[in-house]
């Protein structure tokens, strides 16, 4: 599905360029039964929706370490890790929306919120379509879900 690919491409670019993480080809990685942290980004504008990002704890620590540029042997604090996760989600959302809508569209991207149970919901609101992506990284993986109106999902599919 085209929107899945767009979500994957944008997120992959952000993980590579912002967090200096390499993409790996392994598609068989088990993402279910691991301790993970998740963040939610709400946005509004021409349409409203949510982006969810979930990463396992080990990946999150590496993410924060890479972004901050911590010396070898130094571990990022829990606050730094949460901040890194929020910021990556924020950058993915900001780069994704012009590709889903248009470059002229003006969105309000709200401050990312940590999801208390570390999970991505199966659905988010009535009438919402979804796109999903799983990115396998040298330091683990990242899972994403984008919830936006079905009409926007259908339009994206039709334009492929």
């Amino acid at each position, binding site marked *: 599905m085209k929107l899945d690919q767009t979500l994957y491409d944008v997120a992959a670019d952000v993980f590579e360029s912002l967090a200096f993480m390499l993409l790996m080809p392994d598609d068989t990685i088990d993402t279910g039964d691991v301790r993970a942290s998740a963040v939610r980004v709400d946005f509004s504008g021409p349409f409203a929706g949510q982006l969810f990002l979930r990463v396992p704890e080990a990946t999150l620590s590496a993410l924060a370490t890479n972004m*901050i540029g911590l010396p070898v042997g130094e571990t990022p604090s829990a606050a730094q890790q949460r901040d890194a996760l929020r910021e990556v989600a924020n950058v993915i959302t900001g780069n994704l929306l012009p590709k889903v809508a248009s470059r002229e569209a003006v969105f309000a991207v709200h401050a990312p919120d940590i999801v208390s149970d570390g999970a991505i919901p199966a659905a988010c609101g009535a009438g919402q379509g979804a796109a999903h992506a799983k990115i396998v990284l040298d330091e683990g993986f990242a899972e994403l879900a984008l919830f936006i109106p079905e009409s926007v999902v259908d339009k994206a599919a039709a334009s492929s």
Partner: protein
Amino acid sequence: MPLNVLIVDDSSVMRAMVAKTLRIAGVDIGEIHQAANGQEGLDALRDHWVDLVIVDINMPVMNGEEMIDAVRKDPALQDLPIVVISTEGSQTRIERMERKGAKFVHKPFTPEVVRDVIADLLQG
């Protein structure tokens, strides 16, 4: 001559990234001051001599655009070089920032882009 830089972003991780990027880019840095929102940024400008402001747009309390408007209205600060580093994807909003005299760098960014934008801004 070393530049005193003010970095304004509500993410402490992003502020650290920007500082790291400036060093990697070879920008001659003096003091680095940090602020978590536009109001703290204005307070920092009153307390410290700053040669360059690097600011995000979407922040609580006072956003980057509001901070830029306040800076441009202050006779003591109005010509301060400003670089906006943001995820902002709306061309409409980007052009609005540029009309306020700010340069724009999109997140994610590379050290080379940041270096070139700063060089261009300071020469102009």
